[in-house]
């Protein structure tokens, strides 16, 4: 079963397309990192999945084939928006009460046990809690619904290192215990590496890379060799990124099967950081439309 599936999804705000031509299928049981620069369309994509934003064209399906925004879908997913939306003037206890009454499925003992474990003062007003505590509270309310799919928009953005660790640890524990699939957006790539096993990379509203991180890493290689051979070697490969130095050149290439090392060249495996940065630097690299497109772009770059 796919937890999230889109086909030809596009969202237009006035004249601009926030998301366009977005087709993906995320399988169950994954921890998905939705990455991209600011304004890449991450939030719009999430909002579409939850049903907060209507698609201009294309389709979105959740957990098999439930339409986004339908009651069936909403019951099985949980979403925590970027700013951890809570009623600031209510006390923590009242906030839990509200959530319990607004949801058909809500595990009250779970929520109160967790708030106790977190040392969150339940009588205090939500607005008086620290940023970390507010994030924990929002996450607790989301998890108390025992969702199949948990979507988090920039969950770590406002948190200190301890709170980050604790929030991620809780999410990972729920993934281990209940098999929750998780999609979370972030623009800090180093944060994702330990946690995510599936990557969706966006730039300017389009998908650049989609797939299991292991596969994506295996499909890319760094080649290091003499600069004057760059064009000859690059000609037969899909060069994602080329970096020239004196006499040497470094090529990040994409390939669907193992490549032969050119004589006199060194090969290395790229890190996820390095890979994502290379794609983010050049939004025109659209991995999905195939190696040919990538090759064409990169060949032009090399010729310059």
């Amino acid at each position, binding site marked *: 079963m796919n937890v999230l599936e889109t086909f030809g999804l596009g969202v237009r705000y006035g004249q601009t397309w926030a998301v366009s031509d977005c087709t993906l299928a995320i399988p169950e*049981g994954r*921890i998905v990192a939705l990455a991209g620069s600011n304004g890449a369309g991450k939030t719009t994509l999430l909002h579409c999945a939850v049903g907060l934003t209507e698609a201009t064209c294309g389709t979105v399906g959740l957990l098999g084939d439930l339409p986004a925004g339908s009651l069936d879908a909403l019951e099985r997913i949980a979403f925590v928006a970027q700013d951890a939306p809570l009623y600031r003037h209510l006390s923590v206890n009242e906030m839990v009460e509200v959530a319990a009454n607004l949801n058909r499925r809500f*595990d009250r*003992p*779970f929520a109160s*046990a*967790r708030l106790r*474990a*977190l*040392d969150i003062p339940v009588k205090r007003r939500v607005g008086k809690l620290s940023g970390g505590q507010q994030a*924990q509270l929002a996450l607790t309310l989301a*998890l108390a619904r*025992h969702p199949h799919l948990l979507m988090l928009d920039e969950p770590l953005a406002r948190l200190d290192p*301890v709170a980050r*660790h*604790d929030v*991620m*640890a*809780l999410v*990972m*524990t*729920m*993934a*281990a*215990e209940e098999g929750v699939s998780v999609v979370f957006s972030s623009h800090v790539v*180093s944060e994702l*590496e*330990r*946690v*995510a*096993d599936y990557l969706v990379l966006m730039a300017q509203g389009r998908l650049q890379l989609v797939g299991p991180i292991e596969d994506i890493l295996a499909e890319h290689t760094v080649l290091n060799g003499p600069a004057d051979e760059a064009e000859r070697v690059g000609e037969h490969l899909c060069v994602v990124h080329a970096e020239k130095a004196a006499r040497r050149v470094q090529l990040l290439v994409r390939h669907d099967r193992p490549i032969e090392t050119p004589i006199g060249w060194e090969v290395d495996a790229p*890190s996820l950081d390095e890979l994502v940065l290379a794609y983010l630097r050049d939004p025109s690299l659209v991995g999905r439309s195939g190696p040919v497109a990538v090759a064409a772009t990169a060949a032009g770059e090399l010729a310059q």
Partner: protein
Amino acid sequence: MCRSAGVIKGSYPRAVGGAPLVDALAFCGPWRYSFTMTIGKRDDEARSPLIFRLDPRSGVPTYLQLVHQVEHAIRLGYLVQGDRLPRLKDVVASLSINPNTVQKAYRHLEQEGLIGGRPGQGTFVLASPETVDLATLNALRKRLVDGWLRDATAAGLDDDGIAALFQSALRDFREGRKSRAASSRDGRASGRSAGGVA
């Protein structure tokens, strides 16, 4: 009941219906951040002697870091046959990493025959590697120091040179042994291959 056993500041969920679900971090205590805690009896039984840690800058994939740490602990005798490995949810909670990564590491160790799962109980160390007793180790060490290392230094090799030479000799030795084993399996064992290693 879960409070007596529990994690205090670490924050982990309790199960539906009141049964203790996760008393995460109980097995490894203060992990990077300080947690105050008391350990109940129930936790103690479920604890593992092993504490994982990760080095994000090492460049070694996370699952391999876990594998190496288990192998290392078995080799040095911190983990012996019958010892429990940390539970999946405990590792996940303490390191905040993907559960699939931990599963991958444990699968890898299982394939190596080092650990095995008992359904409903956990994962346990199966085999202890052949260990060499202390006297033998000391004798071997003495021969290395008094003989080969002295000669190598006298010949003008520095530390890196010695390490490189040893690594390369060891590799040849292992490969020689492997090819010997292969050829004897083929029924072609002969005096010819025995000479290759010496």
